[in-house]
């Protein structure tokens, strides 16, 4: 109902704008239509969103006490430079899981203390001679070991569970999910990533910024001919499916999503298990947050280009096509935000009259519409949104969007940058990206100029009502 309310509010507002507030005169009318068109842009997205997340029901299989059909399971924990306090609980908890399985710690940092810990906990310590392709390469090395040992007559591994080194599995991590593999078409089970470090940078007092993604958006993809993508952690994969696509993808820095597309192309299914089964560490500082989001965004651009997603309908269902294409393009949202800042400014400075409504009436109508939209969108997202935090974090997508656009134009080689999960020597506050400082100065200048114009202190050719229409 929230989604419908938000859509109706925007439609009614746009109807009022078109029928009752359009000015006369060719110049004014042209600019007014540009502004109304700009205001109408969110409508298509709102309708698509309401349709796609209408149903987020989950139907998991019953918990099991053994892996189906005698399958053998290995839990993989790739690690690089994370400290003992981050890695230890993950390895200790993984070794404790039922049913019987192996726990492999893939240490790309070649650290003796990690090997000691593995011996103490009964995990298998794995290191490799060549450290290429970061986490993807690390995992592929482990897959190569598995294949070699099976070829040498060993029992082999059938299912791998992947945990980022800060994601501590809860006791039912395997017993709750292994039942999915009764279906021979399933290659991937992805679970939500939940975080236990309250006060993280994206903590909004609900479930953090990723709560909407994991509790609504991903859950909505458990429909026929669609499914979630691999998010790197809190996941399980069928080894034979991975082998079929040549292992973990190394062509991009978001190897998880890219591998999923390869699986989908080969006809494998992916499913979402909507239950918190592991808890990890969310980025604690602005710099960690920005580093992680930039990597995700630029990796999405790599996938967009590498897989030519705009032409992927030939091998995808409509739902998957919509989700993957929109999901990658979403990382360019920062560019749209930047444009959204500039258009009203330009229109306001143009002096055109864009509304015949008085300032009080316009403000009132706009506020009612905007309030209903915010309320409705929050309902649609099952109350997983905290608007002040969501707005605060949205501005980070401006530098991320710019980085993504720059990569699309330059196609530089990208390096996988691990999100730091430990402490720092100095206590430092976050650094505001330069583009945001520019935007703050620009907006402040425009607001001051508009206010001065309304007060008659500077030349201002439009009406108060139009100023409000552009300025809101």
């Amino acid at each position, binding site marked *: 109902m929230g989604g419908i309310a938000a859509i109706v509010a925007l439609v009614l507002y746009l109807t009022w704008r078109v029928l009752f507030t359009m000015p006369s005169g060719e110049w004014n009318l042209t600019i007014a239509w540009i502004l109304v068109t700009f205001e109408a842009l969110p409508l298509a997205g709102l309708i698509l969103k309401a349709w796609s997340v209408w149903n987020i029901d989950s139907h998991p299989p019953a918990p099991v006490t053994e892996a189906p059909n005698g399958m053998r399971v290995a839990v993989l924990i790739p690690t690089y430079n994370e400290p003992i306090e981050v890695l230890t609980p993950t390895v200790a908890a993984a070794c404790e899981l039922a049913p019987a399985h192996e726990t492999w710690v893939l240490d790309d940092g070649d650290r003796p203390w990690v090997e000691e810990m593995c011996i103490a906990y009964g995990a298998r310590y794995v290191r490799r001679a060549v450290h290429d392709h970061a986490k993807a390469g690390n995992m592929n090395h482990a897959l190569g070991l598995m294949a070699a040992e099976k070829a040498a007559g060993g029992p082999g591994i059938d299912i791998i569970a992947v945990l980022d080194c800060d994601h*501590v599995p809860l006791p039912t991590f395997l017993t709750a999910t292994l039942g999915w593999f009764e279906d021979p078409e399933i290659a991937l089970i992805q679970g939500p990533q939940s975080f236990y470090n309250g006060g993280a940078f994206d903590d909004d007092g609900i479930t953090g910024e990723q709560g909407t993604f994991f509790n609504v958006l991903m859950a909505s993809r458990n429909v026929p001919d669609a499914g979630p993508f691999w998010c790197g952690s809190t996941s399980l994969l069928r080894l034979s499916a991975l082998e079929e696509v040549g292992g973990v993808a190394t062509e991009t820095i978001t190897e998880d999503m890219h591998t999923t597309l390869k699986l989908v192309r080969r006809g494998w299914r992916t499913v979402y298990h909507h239950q918190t089964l592991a808890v990890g560490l969310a980025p604690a*500082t602005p710099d960690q947050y920005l580093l992680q989001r930039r990597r995700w965004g630029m990796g999405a651009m790599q996938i967009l280009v590498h897989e030519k997603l705009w032409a992927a309908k030939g091998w995808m269902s409509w739902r998957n096509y919509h989700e993957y294409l929109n999901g990658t393009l979403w990382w360019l949202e920062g560019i749209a935000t930047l444009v959204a800042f500039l258009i009203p400014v330009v229109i306001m400075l143009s002096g055109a009259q864009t509304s015949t409504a008085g300032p009080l009436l316009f403000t009132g109508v706009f506020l009612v519409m905007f309030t209903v939209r915010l309320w409705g969108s929050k309902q649609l997202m099952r109350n997983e949104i905290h608007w002040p935090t969501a707005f605060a974090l949205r501005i980070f997508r401006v530098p991320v969007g710019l980085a993504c656009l720059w990569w699309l134009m330059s196609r530089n080689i990208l390096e996988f940058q691990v999100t730091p999960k430990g402490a720092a020597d100095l206590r430092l506050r976050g650094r505001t990206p330069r583009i945001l400082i520019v935007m703050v100065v620009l907006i402040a200048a425009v607001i001051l100029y508009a206010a001065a114009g309304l007060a008659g202190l500077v030349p201002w050719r439009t009406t108060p009502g139009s100023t409000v229409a552009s300025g809101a």
Partner: protein
Amino acid sequence: MLAGVVLVLGTRRIRAAEFATSRRNAYRMEVSAPVEAEGAGGELLDISVGGAAVRFPRGTLPASGPVTLRLPEAAPVRLQVIRTTGQPDGTEIASLQAADDDWATYRALSLWIFHTPAGALPDFPPGVPAAASLRGR
């Protein structure tokens, strides 16, 4: 105007002191539970995979050195007293830490936090680990 509000919210969050970097590697959870040490009963105040803060009657714990702490429904763990601070109510708060390379203690604390034994935290719903504590947030 909305753009301005969003920008202000965002830049304030970036510069906020609570999101500054920290020298602490282990995340601490505020969890209240009865604990035992040196034959006396005390209270757990917070816990991490590397140690704990506890409150005991003054004089129960040594000013430094090893102590054996028993968490609810768990085997005793060996920790080092780092410091004790006297309180006006006659108790003392002690900071306890696992010794380097004490894998058994790290494991015991980790499992108590994330695979919390049944009955250890009666105020928590069944199956919910101590890591889910919302105290102090």
